[in-house]
Each structure stands twice: as structure tokens, then as C-alpha cells.
């Protein structure tokens, strides 16, 4: 194949994948009142407006809370599980692995509906708590998988040496294992954060009045309003994700872990 053909194919594919974002960025920078492209004059007023919409601020805060604390909780129970699955010859390890991985296999909307009907309602759990639990469950498979592959690359003799030299098992874990899988944990956190922050289907049924994650708030906002502010917000969210991934890639070669 000639170079021209190669770049023609890649150029078309990348335009299809990335072009729409560039359009959203400009559509959000319109000076006009209605969504259009090319924009009617340039201004940053819609980008500024995004920050003044009360419901966006509340739902952004909720999404941040869920993404940060949901992922931290998933790591808190996921790291020991990954460690147990890698280092102990557990009978039924495969079954445990499947159980923990199940939440990504089942479509999110089913998870949300099931939790609403058979967890939230009978146990009288608050919506925020239900969202927190759901996001933790959805992030847990990623946490276990990424930390597992990190542990896989770390030879077990180092911990055994530490134990022989007088450490307790726990000390060996904290002093030898943790520092060595730091990169994997950080990668798992970023992956979990992005997954949770962008999640929609599972949270759909778990939204009450005033309690909504940002993506769901955007969905309902765009049903009633047709101004460029959603385009501006979409562009801002895209920038945020790209920045996070870019920094992660520079700092620790994120893509090695995913």
C-alpha cells in the first residue's frame, strides 16, 4: 500500500472519530442564541454560562463525589481481592474473579433498575447512597483487573524475602508490594474515575429530583433547551478527560496499564 492510501484511510477514520469534537468546541463558542454550525460570530458567553447554571453545579459536585469516593472505595476492597487472587492459591478463585467482574458484563440500565427495585426501595436507601454503591460496584472490576495485572508483573519472592527478614505479612505488603504497584493503583484510579464520571445507564433510574449526575443532567437539559450551553459543557468535559489522560500518560505511561 502506498503512503498516500495509508494516510487517506487514517485521515478519514480520524476525522470521523475526532472531527465532531472540534465542531462541538466551535458550536459552543457561538455568539448566537441557537445551536448552529458554523457559529454565528464567536464569543465565550456560553462557556461562561455553564458555570452559572445551578443544576450543573450541583450535578457536577455529585458526579465528582461519586467518581472520587466510589473509586477509592472500590480500590479499598479491590486491592486486597486482587492480592488474594494473585498470591494465594484459592480454590474457586475463578468463581470469585467472575463474580467481581460481573458488573461490567451486565448492561448498566439493568443494574440500575434492579438496584432501584430490589435494593433502594426495600432497604429504604437514599438515592445518593444508592448511586455511591452502584458506582463502586461498576468501578470494582476495573480496579481488580488493573491492580491484578500490576501484581502479576511483581515477583512474589520479594515479599517472601521481606517476611524471612522479619517483616510481618502486612508490613511486607505495605513496604514492599504497595510501592511497587503504585503505578497500577493510580492507573486504576484514573480509569475508575473516568468510567464513573461518564456513566449514564446505571444511574438513569437512580436519579431523584435534585439528585442527578452531570451526564444525566445534561441529557434532561438538552431536552428542554436548545442553546449552545450543552455544546460548551460537552467541550469542557472533553477537555477535562483529555487533560487527565494526557497527564497520566506523561507521568506514568497510563496506556501500559489499561
Amino acid at each position, binding site marked *: 500500500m502506498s503512503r498516500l492510501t495509508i494516510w487517506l484511510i487514517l485521515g478519514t477514520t480520524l476525522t470521523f472519530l475526532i472531527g465532531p469534537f472540534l465542531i462541538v468546541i466551535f458550536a459552543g463558542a457561538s455568539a448566537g442564541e441557537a445551536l448552529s454550525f458554523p457559529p454565528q460570530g464567536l464569543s465565550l458567553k456560553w462557556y461562561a454560562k455553564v458555570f452559572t447554571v445551578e443544576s450543573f453545579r450541583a450535578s457536577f459536585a455529585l458526579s465528582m463525589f461519586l467518581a472520587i469516593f466510589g473509586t477509592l472505595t472500590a480500590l479499598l476492597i479491590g486491592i486486597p*481481592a486482587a492480592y488474594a487472587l494473585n498470591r*494465594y492459591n484459592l*480454590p474457586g478463585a475463578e468463581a470469585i474473579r467472575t463474580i467481581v467482574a460481573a458488573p461490567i458484563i451486565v*448492561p448498566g440500565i439493568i443494574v440500575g433498575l434492579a438496584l432501584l*427495585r430490589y435494593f433502594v426501595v426495600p432497604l429504604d436507601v437514599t438515592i445518593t447512597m444508592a448511586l455511591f454503591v452502584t458506582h463502586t460496584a461498576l468501578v*470494582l472490576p476495573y480496579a481488580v483487573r488493573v491492580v491484578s495485572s500490576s501484581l502479576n508483573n511483581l515477583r512474589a519472592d520479594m515479599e517472601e524475602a521481606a517476611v524471612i527478614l522479619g517483616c510481618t505479612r502486612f508490613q511486607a505488603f505495605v513496604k514492599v508490594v504497595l510501592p511497587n504497584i503504585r503505578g497500577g493503583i493510580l492507573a486504576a484510579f484514573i480509569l475508575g474515575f473516568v468510567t464513573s464520571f461518564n456513566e449514564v445507564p446505571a444511574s438513569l433510574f437512580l436519579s431523584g429530583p435534585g439528585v442527578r449526575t452531570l451526564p444525566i443532567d445534561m441529557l434532561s437539559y438538552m431536552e428542554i433547551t436548545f442553546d449552545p450551553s450543552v455544546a460548551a459543557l*460537552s467541550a469542557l468535559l472533553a477537555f477535562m478527560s483529555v487533560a487527565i489522560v494526557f497527564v497520566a500518560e506523561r507521568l506514568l505511561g497510563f496506556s501500559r496499564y489499561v
Partner: protein
Amino acid sequence: MFLNRSEGFALALPAALFTCLVFLVPVGILLSAAFQAEPGVWSLQGYVDFFSQPLNQSVFLRTLKLGVLVAGTSAVIGYAAAFCIVNLPASSRGRIFGLVVLPLMISPVARTYAWIVILGRTGIVNDVIVGLGLSETPIRLLFTETAVFIGLLQLFLPLMIISLVSAMENIPQDVVPAARVLGASWFQVFFRVILPLTKEGLVIGGTLVFTGALTAYITPAILGGSKVLMLETLLYQKVNVSNDFVSASVIAMILIVMCFSANLVLKRIASVRS
């Protein structure tokens, strides 16, 4: 390997218990509701009722059709793109690959919203159509199957490209030139060399794209609306509009069965070809 099993179980227990409690049990009860037309009475009546309505039938078939179309199209584009990426010099390969992966990190709502700007009444495509005089008034492009198809394709194409790139990286470098030198046409090279050597990647990518398209909610919700329902948006309507939980559980069961059988069928196809 440590031999203290109870210690190992104690470490794995919180995660396993948590998933069982907040995930497996509720989903299990929901799916069992699909077999109970009335609480406590086991029957397949829910399925009979569901498939007896023409609307539900057409939504089911549309979901299946879009899933197949999106998976098939992304396989074709994916092979072309992956082949190009693998043949790039190492320096630009990483960068181009990064650009392919990038969209996966961005909110699907933002990714889908872009198509409203492009396909809407005052969007670029309609500007061009009206500008060229192909039509007097803007054409309805949103809320059509085509719009949903385009949205889904853009959303899931990266997964196919990633799977195929990693499959192609494992092909020994001189196999394709060797086949060419021995007189194979590009058509033969693809079907007799590349395809057999990458079918595992194709199965993984195909499963990811197909199940992703079946279970996508955002794209049909934004670009299809209530005019072009798919199973996920229909499920949402059954719950929030008509309060019909039996149908909702039936749809849930159908979606899960479709996802798992897609994986099995694709694996079967891969093993038959060899």
C-alpha cells in the same frame, strides 16, 4: 504462592460479598421476575405478551439489525485502519493510536451531542443540502435509524480498531510481503493470510462492538428519541412511562441473552474457519 487459605479468603471476601449483595442478588431477582407474570406464579406469559405486540417486535428486530450493521461496518473500517496503523513508522504509530483511543475517555453524552450539531435542522449537513439546492427545506436527519447508526459507529469503532491492531501486531512482519511476492492479490492476502491470523481480535472486537451497540442507551435516546426506539430506550419507557415492570424484566433478560449468545456465536464462527 501463600498457602494460608483462610487469610486469602478473608482478603477477597469484602469485594465478593459487596458485589453479591448490591449486584448479583438484585439483578437475579429482576431477571426471575421475567418469568413471573404475577408474583409467585412461574410462566413464560411475559415473553408471549411482549412478542405479541408489533411495536416490541419491531424494536427487537431494529436493535438486532443495528447491532449487526454497526459491528459489520466497524469490522470493515477497523481492518483498513488497523492495517494502516500497524504499517506506520514506530514514531507516528503511538500518536495515531492515541488519537484512536482518546474518544473512549470522553463522555458518551458529549460524543453523541456532537451529532445533533452536525445532523440537526440547522446543522452542517442540512446547510450543505439546502445550500446546494438539493432540497428546499432542511431534511429530517435526526431521529432516524441512520442517525443512530452513525452515532453508534462513532462510539464503538475505536474498540474494534484497538482489538484488531493488537491482533495484527502479532502477525510476523514478513508474512504479508511473502504472500504478495508469491503472487497473491490483496484480496487473497486478506482472506487467506490476514483474516485467519487475526480472527481472535475480530471476535473480541466484534463482541465488544455488538454488545456495546445493543446495550447503548445514550445514543438511541439522543439521536433516535421515541421515533427510533431500541431495546434499552424501550425498557426505560416501559418503566417510566407505562410502569410495566414485567415487560422491563423481559427486555432485561433478552438483552442479557443476546449479549452472551453473541459472544458464543462469534467464538463458534472463529473456530469453524480454522
